[in-house]
């Protein structure tokens, strides 16, 4: 085992995030089992469904690169879905809802950031607690019953296409590219990398550690707000259960994409392919008739195996 890991070719291959391998394997499975599904229209629909997750992952990878985590995304999505669909603001314009959603996301993210970066509270506990506070609050407001419909303009935008590619997918790719440039070209991106690599070294080199963590969490909240808008547009009705499993899927996709706790490595495109892998995984599992419990087990196993993959690799280095 150790000798195999020391082999230069092996080491090179281990450096590639598992997301790419998983994506390739799933694509091959689908190509063998259901070749007729691999056309642009059908794939477009499947990928479009996964866009909320993809946008949430952009926030997740940011916080995970500074050794934190954000599990409050489910609560944020639920709260925004409720405010849009419950008719609390009758006749409000689309712009108002968008601003409101982004404001909710920013506020929750900022709160998480303060708790994690300034109070130095465990990020898992803070964001989990914030998540259940929000979920309980929405369920209290709605008494457990699904609220009403979402204004039609959301679905209208969601259903547009640019050529064969659905608009939400283009939006997701553009947002990923923007974040990728932001992380590689700005001073803030350098700060994120250095905090992720070694908090103490970053602190003594003059990096504003607390501010960086607060900012990444605020951005993660913003991405959760955007993901909530897309998710709300995609289901077009209010729900008291929407998006609850998204945070854990986001963590899974991010780990799969090569962003690991305790190291400032990993880019934007690894997690991007992690999300695509999940899109394919759901297609494959649905075509093979795997039901909801099977999906839960698969999610758990994927997180575990990806984490073990990195654990072994870090030990061999």
């Amino acid at each position, binding site marked *: 085992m150790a000798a195999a890991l020391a082999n230069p070719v092996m080491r090179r291959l281990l450096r590639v995030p598992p997301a790419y391998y998983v994506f390739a394997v799933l694509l091959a499975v689908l190509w063998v089992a259901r070749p007729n599904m691999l056309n642009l229209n059908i794939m477009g629909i499947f990928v479009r469904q996964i866009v909320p997750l993809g946008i949430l992952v952009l926030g997740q990878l940011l916080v995970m690169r500074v*050794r934190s985590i954000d599990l409050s995304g489910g609560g944020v999505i639920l709260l925004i879905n409720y405010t849009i669909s419950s008719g609390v603001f009758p006749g409000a314009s689309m712009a108002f809802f968008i601003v409101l959603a982004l404001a909710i996301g920013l506020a929750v993210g900022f709160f998480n950031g303060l708790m994690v970066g300034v109070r*130095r*509270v465990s*990020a898992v*506990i*803070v964001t989990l*607690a914030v998540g259940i506070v929000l979920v309980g*609050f929405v369920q209290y407001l709605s008494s457990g019953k699904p609220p009403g419909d979402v204004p039609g303009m959301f679905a209208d935008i969601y259903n547009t296409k640019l050529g064969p590619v659905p608009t939400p997918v283009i939006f997701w790719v553009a947002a990923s590219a923007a974040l990728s440039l932001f992380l590689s070209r700005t001073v803030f991106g350098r700060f994120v990398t250095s905090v992720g690599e070694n908090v103490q070294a970053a602190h003594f080199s003059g990096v504003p550690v607390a501010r960086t963590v607060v900012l990444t969490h605020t951005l993660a909240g913003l991405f959760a707000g955007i993901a909530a808008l897309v998710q709300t547009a995609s289901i077009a009705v209010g729900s008291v259960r929407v998006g609850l499993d998204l945070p854990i899927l986001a963590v899974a996709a991010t780990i799969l994409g090569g962003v690991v706790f305790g190291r400032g490595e990993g880019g934007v495109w690894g997690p991007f392919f992690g999300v695509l892998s999940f899109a394919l995984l759901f297609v494959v599992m649905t075509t093979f008739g795997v039901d909801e419990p099977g999906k839960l087990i698969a999610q758990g196993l994927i997180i*575990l195996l990806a*984490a073990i993959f990195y654990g072994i690799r870090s030990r061999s280095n």
Partner: protein
Amino acid sequence: MTAISRRLTGARGSRQGMWLLPLLIVLAIALWLSLQTAQFLNGENLLNLVPQAMPLVITAVGQMFVILLGGLDLSVGSMISFTTAVLALGGPAWALIPAVFVLAALVGFSNGFIITRFNVHPIIATLSMQYILLGITRVLRPVSGGTVPDIVISAVAGSFLGIPMPVFWGIVTLAVAWKLLYGSRFGLHLFAIGGGVSSGVEDAAHNFGIADRRNIVLAYVICACFAALAGIFLAGRIVSGDPNVGLLFELDAITAVAIGGTQLSGAIGSLHGTVIGALVMALLANGMNLTNVSPFIQTTIKGAILLLVVALQSRKKMGL
């Protein structure tokens, strides 16, 4: 004055953390409830309090072992649901009850093994275990139903020498936990390993010749077994298997441990503090039910308490 406040919040450098203050909170809540509602001091309600609190007490005590190490077990909620599902499979009690503990030990062992041997963060390892167990539970029992062995039901609902059975569950749990924590080498090593983790020197205990991996794995096994015990108790109360009974139980357990003065970064905490913390949560739940607080807002209140308690704890490490 400073002497009093030090007494209440736990002296600086104390290994037990603050537990007197939470005890006062318990008394304050009890006093407030008895003034607020006539039903609280009602004999029936007081008798119900023990079985209501017991699952949380048992789970929180188990959770305390891994928290003292600076770890965390997020899979206990699923473990509880899983246990009720296994008990409701239908089969002889002499086979099912040992099977539950063997399975729990296996889950705890996998958690500990993955964390220590594969270098995986405890939160990630137990979070994925939570999902895997939840999936298996839903395969075994998609909706609640089935019946658990009679002996389990009578062991929870019956009474012995005129004393309700749940009291004995509490005594056994506390005796076992007391022995493990304060009467064994394992307990001492637990504090030593946690002390290293909380001060940022992960292998401090290892360097002093403590078999840290073995003890960490053992702590996760103990945590899972206590969760299984809580699952058996709950199965006896609801008389069936329920895939959702343990939902969010891990958060209640963590909150209870944290309220009891145990530091989530490890090494500081006490058994009596954890029991007091669990009592705070149980009294709160009881009081909110008596005063007709919506169950949905109860979730929010519990989450807010967790936030408040962890925000009051300071620690050196940042992030996870």
